C-alpha cells in the first residue's frame, strides 16, 4: 500500500515535470517553427529588400513588406496616441482618487471590456466608427475617405487596449508604498502634486511596462483591424488613408494560393516578424513588472 502511494507520487512528479517543461517550451517551439518556415524567403531575398521595398507582387516573386509594416506602425501609433493619455488618467483616478464604491463599479466593467471578442469590436467599428469618419471627420478635414482607415482602426484598437493599460498600471500604482504619499501630503503637497512628483515618478518603470504591453497587444490584434482598416497595400500618408497591417495581411492571404512559390514563406515571415516584436515588448515589460512585484513581496 505504502509502496503503491510512493510509486504514484514519483510517477506523477515525473509526468508533471515533463508537462511543465514542455508547456514552457511551446514559445520556443513557435519561434523555431516560424523561423524554419520563413527561412526559404530569407535565404533568397536580401532582408533590406523585404523590409523596405514597397513592391508586393507575390505572382512576380516580389515581396516588399514596407507598406504593411508602415500600416502596422500607423495603426498602432494612433491607438497608442488615443489610449495612453486616457487610460493613464483613468488609472490614476481609480487608484488615487476614486472611492471604493466607484472602484467596485468600474473595475468589473473594465474586465468586461477586456473580455469582448475582437470580432465584436470590429462589428462596432463598422457600425459606428467607420460611418462617423466617412460622414463627419473626413468632410471636416475637407477630404474624402471611405471611413475604412487608420483612424478607424486606431480608435477601435485604442478601446481594446484600455483594459490592458489600466489593469497593469493600477496594479503598479498600488505597489507604491502609502508612506511615500503620506510623507508628501504631510509636507503640504496637494494630491495632484503628490501624484505627479511622487507616485508617478516612483511608478514610472511600471507605467512604461503597462504602455508597452498595450502597444504589443495593439500590434498583434488581427480581426478588428482587418475589418476596419481598409486593407489597401500602399504606404499611408495620413490617418484618413486606408492601411494594411501585417496581421491583416496574414489573415487575408494565408491558406490560399499556397502554390505560388515563396508565398507561404513570406506570410510566415510576417508572422515571425510580428512574433519577434511582440516577444521583445513582452519580455521587456515583464522584466520590469517582475522586479516591481518582487519589491512588494
Amino acid at each position, binding site marked *: 500500500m505504502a509502496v503503491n502511494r510512493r510509486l504514484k507520487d514519483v510517477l506523477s512528479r515525473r509526468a508533471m515535470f515533463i508537462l511543465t517543461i514542455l508547456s514552457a517550451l511551446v514559445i520556443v517551439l513557435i519561434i523555431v517553427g516560424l523561423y524554419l518556415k520563413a527561412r526559404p524567403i530569407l535565404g533568397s531575398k536580401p532582408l533590406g529588400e523585404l523590409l523596405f521595398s514597397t513592391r508586393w507582387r507575390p505572382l512576380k516573386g516580389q515581396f516588399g513588406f514596407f507598406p504593411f509594416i508602415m500600416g502596422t506602425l500607423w495603426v498602432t501609433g494612433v491607438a497608442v496616441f488615443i489610449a495612453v*493619455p486616457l487610460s493613464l488618467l483613468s488609472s490614476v483616478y481609480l487608484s488615487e482618487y476614486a472611492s471604493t464604491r466607484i472602484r467596485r463599479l468600474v473595475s468589473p*466593467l473594465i474586465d468586461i471590456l477586456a*473580455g469582448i471578442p475582437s470580432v465584436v469590436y470590429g462589428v462596432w467599428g463598422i457600425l459606428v466608427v467607420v460611418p462617423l469618419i466617412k460622414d463627419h471627420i473626413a468632410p471636416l478635414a475637407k477630404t474624402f475617405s471611405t471611413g475604412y482607415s487608420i483612424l478607424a482602426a486606431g480608435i477601435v484598437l485604442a478601446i481594446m487596449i484600455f483594459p490592458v493599460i489600466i489593469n497593469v498600471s493600477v496594479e503598479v500604482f498600488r505597489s507604491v508604498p502609502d508612506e511615500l504619499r503620506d510623507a508628501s501630503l504631510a509636507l503640504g503637497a496637494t494630491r495632484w502634486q503628490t501624484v505627479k512628483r511622487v507616485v508617478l515618478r516612483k511608478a514610472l518603470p511600471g507605467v512604461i511596462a503597462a504602455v508597452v504591453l498595450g502597444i504589443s497587444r495593439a500590434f498583434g490584434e488581427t480581426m478588428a483591424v482587418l475589418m476596419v482598416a481598409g486593407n489597401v497595400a500602399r504606404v499611408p500618408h495620413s490617418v484618413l488613408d486606408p492601411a494594411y497591417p501585417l496581421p491583416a495581411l496574414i489573415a487575408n492571404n494565408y491558406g490560399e494560393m499556397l502554390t505560388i512559390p515563396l508565398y507561404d514563406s513570406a506570410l510566415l515571415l510576417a508572422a515571425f516578424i510580428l512574433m519577434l516584436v511582440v516577444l521583445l515588448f513582452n519580455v521587456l515589460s*515583464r522584466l520590469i513588472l517582475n522586479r516591481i512585484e518582487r519589491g512588494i513581496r
Partner: protein
Amino acid sequence: MDRRRVEEKFFLVLMVGATVVIVSSLILILVQVLLKGLPALNLAMITQTPKGGFYLGKEGGILNAIVGSLYLAGGATLLSVLLSLPVALYLNVYARSGTFVTFCRFSFDVLCGVPSIVFGAFGLAIMLFLKMRASLLAGIITIALLIFPIMIRAMDEVIRMVPRELVDASDALGATRLETSFRVVARQALPGILTAVLIAFGRGIGDAASVLFTAGFTDYIPDSLLRPAASLPLAIFFQLGSPLNEVKDRAYASALILTIIILAISLIARWISKKFAAHVIK
C-alpha cells in the same frame, strides 16, 4: 496657492472625464450591438443550420456556428485543463520556487501576449507539415495552444494564495505531494480554478484569428473530430462581408449572440468565485 488648487481641479476633471469616456465606450459598444442585433434575432437563428440560399438572405440560422464554437472552445478548454492543472500544481506544490519556476512563469506570461494570428499561422504550418486538413481537431488544438498559458497563469495566481500551513499540515499527516496537490490544494483553490477555466473558455470562444485557417467553416454541425467546424466569430465575419442587408443584419444578430455568451460566462465566473469563496478555509 491658488494655482495649485486650479491645477488640482483641472486634472481631477481630466481624470474623471477619461474614466467616463472609457466606461461609456463599453456601454456604447454593448448598447449598439444590442440595438442592431436584436431586430434580426429570432428563434430560427439559434435553432436551425443554414438552409439553401442562407447567404443570400433565405431561411436558416447559425446553429452550426453556435455548436461549432461550443465544440471548439469546449474541447480546447478540456485539453487545456488537462495540461494546466498539473502544471500549475507542479509550480506551487512540487517545485515551489527557484529559477525553474521563475522561468516557467515568465514563459507563460510571454506566451499570453502572443497574438492569436500567430497561433493560427503556426497551427496551419503544423497542419501542412502533418498533411492534415482544416478540422474540428486542428481548431481545438490551436485554441488550446492559445488559451492554456492564460489558464495556467490564472490557476497559478489562485493556487499561490493557498495558505502554506494547509500544505504543511497535509505533509505532517504523511500525505504524499500528489495527495496534497489534489485533495488539499486543488480543493482549496477550486473556485479560483473554475474561474480560470471559464476565463479561458471565454477567450477561446471569442477568438477568430486562431481558427480562421485551422477549423475551416461548414454549414453542418460536425459529427467527427476530423470534420471542419464553423465558429461564431467567423460566422459574424463572413456574413458581414456580404453586400446584402438581410445577411448583414444576421451578422449583427450573431455578434449579439456571441456577446451574450461572453457576458454570461463572465457573470457565471463572478458568481462562482463569490458563491464558493464561503467554503474556502481562510
